């Protein structure tokens, strides 16, 4: 559906870097883009959207996008900071993209925003704003939906709620989606395919359960604190979002990375 072969020299906070991406994305795929800050994820999305220039070629459905302005690409883009039109109501934000009132109403229904249609977007909560942003991006029925860390500013409950809505919209509209994310659980829940970007190059590319799931039961964690309990050294670590205490060797220091092995009992197998 979309063939990407681009090159761009970046001068960022991490020094100079060459962004080199060669990629084929199939129609209807949900691709997650992972990697450390400054690895070029957002730049890649912006190049695809036509908001930044790059050398090389982008061909979507047989049409070259090189030199094509963002207005003509028919892309949906969800920004991390929502980027809503602040002087408009929820409904006006959607109709600004496309006058199709029926589609707007359908999208607002799907994302439980119907009751807020006439509200000014400045009065909404973060989760509601991001839903409006998502609906606005879908108003073009885009062939390609790009999302730049769409859920990073939201609390965990709102995240899982919106994850379901994103998946629902992706399937309902048969959209091809590329999402930048730092959250492994989010990527695992949403994406079919995961790309890991490092210093401008794709270093891993595969199905999400192949790339994301650690099958050997060992996890590297950082020691947050140490205490002595009846002559035994106990380390406090963060595991699956919870603070856990485990017994460790007395040579371990605070800040060290240790390997925790989960046995079958712990895994519940």
């Amino acid at each position: 559906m979309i063939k990407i072969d681009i090159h761009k020299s970046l001068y960022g906070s991490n020094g100079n870097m060459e962004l080199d991406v060669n990629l084929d994305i199939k129609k209807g795929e949900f691709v997650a883009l992972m990697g450390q800050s400054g690895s070029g994820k957002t730049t890649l999305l912006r190049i695809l959207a036509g908001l930044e220039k790059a050398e090389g070629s982008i061909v979507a459905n047989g049409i070259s996008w090189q030199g094509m302005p963002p207005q003509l690409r028919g892309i949906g883009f969800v920004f991390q900071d929502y980027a809503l039109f602040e002087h408009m109501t929820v409904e006006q934000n959607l109709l600004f993209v496309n006058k199709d009132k029926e589609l707007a109403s359908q999208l607002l229904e799907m994302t439980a925003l119907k009751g807020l249609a006439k509200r000014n977007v400045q009065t909404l909560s973060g989760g509601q704003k991001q839903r409006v942003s998502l609906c606005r991006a879908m108003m073009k029925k885009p062939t390609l939906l790009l999302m730049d860390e769409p859920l990073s500013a939201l609390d965990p409950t709102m995240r899982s709620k919106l994850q379901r809505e994103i998946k629902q919209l992706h399937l309902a509209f048969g959209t091809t989606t590329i999402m930048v994310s730092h959250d492994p659980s989010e990527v695992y829940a949403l994406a079919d395919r995961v790309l890991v970007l490092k210093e401008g190059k794709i270093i891993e590319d595969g199905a999400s359960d192949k790339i994301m799931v650690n099958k050997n039961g060992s996890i590297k964690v950082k020691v947050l604190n140490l205490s002595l309990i009846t002559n035994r050294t106990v380390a406090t670590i963060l595991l699956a979002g919870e603070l856990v205490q485990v017994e460790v060797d007395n040579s371990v220091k605070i800040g060290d990375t240790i390997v925790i092995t989960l046995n079958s009992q712990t895994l519940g197998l």
Partner: protein
Amino acid sequence: MIETLDFAPFLLSFKLAGVTTLILFIVSLPLAWYLSQTNSKSKPFLEAVTALPLVLPPSVLGFYILVVLSPNSSVGSFLENIFGIKLVFSFAGLVVASCFYSLPFMVQPLQSGFESLNKHMLEASYLAGKNKFQTILRVALPNIKPSLITALIITFAHTVGEFGVVLMVGGSIPNETKVASVAIYEMVEVMEYGKAHIYSAIMVGISFMVLLSVYLFNHKQKTKIGLA
């Protein structure tokens, strides 16, 4: 005394300010937008030229405008011979001079308003299929209302209060170039202090009301956010 006062200079001042504000808004919009979006090397040069009327003595500005627009210059003679427009000592000439003189008062608030906008919001408009012109009109301007109102009102008020440039380029022809500030100057010259007092008091009152309306509007806009 009030019956004998001639209010034509005030009407002329407001007419001049209205026309100047309208022309400057149209001219400054693309200039302020360009300055707010560009990183080009020419930006500081353009900004300096735009801000020049803030620091130049009005007599310097008036002198050069007079030199360029006079029928003896190539520009002046071209305009007079081809279009029959005489720009020195005429209302049209005053408008041209005022546009130069008040340019920074329109450009700078608009530029800083555009610069304060979330860039992603403008990009969202482009991605929605809108071109730059539609984005400026439908997204950028409605989101910089306080800057827009400041630019329009301060330009208007500044043009009403203009004196040096107007006197040099327009002189003092009743109903043509004799604006309120020039009229006050002439009253003081012939020692008609009573009339000068009334004219000056009116100017102070109007100027204060104009500024008060700007600050009230901007205050209202700030408190309105979140309650729309």
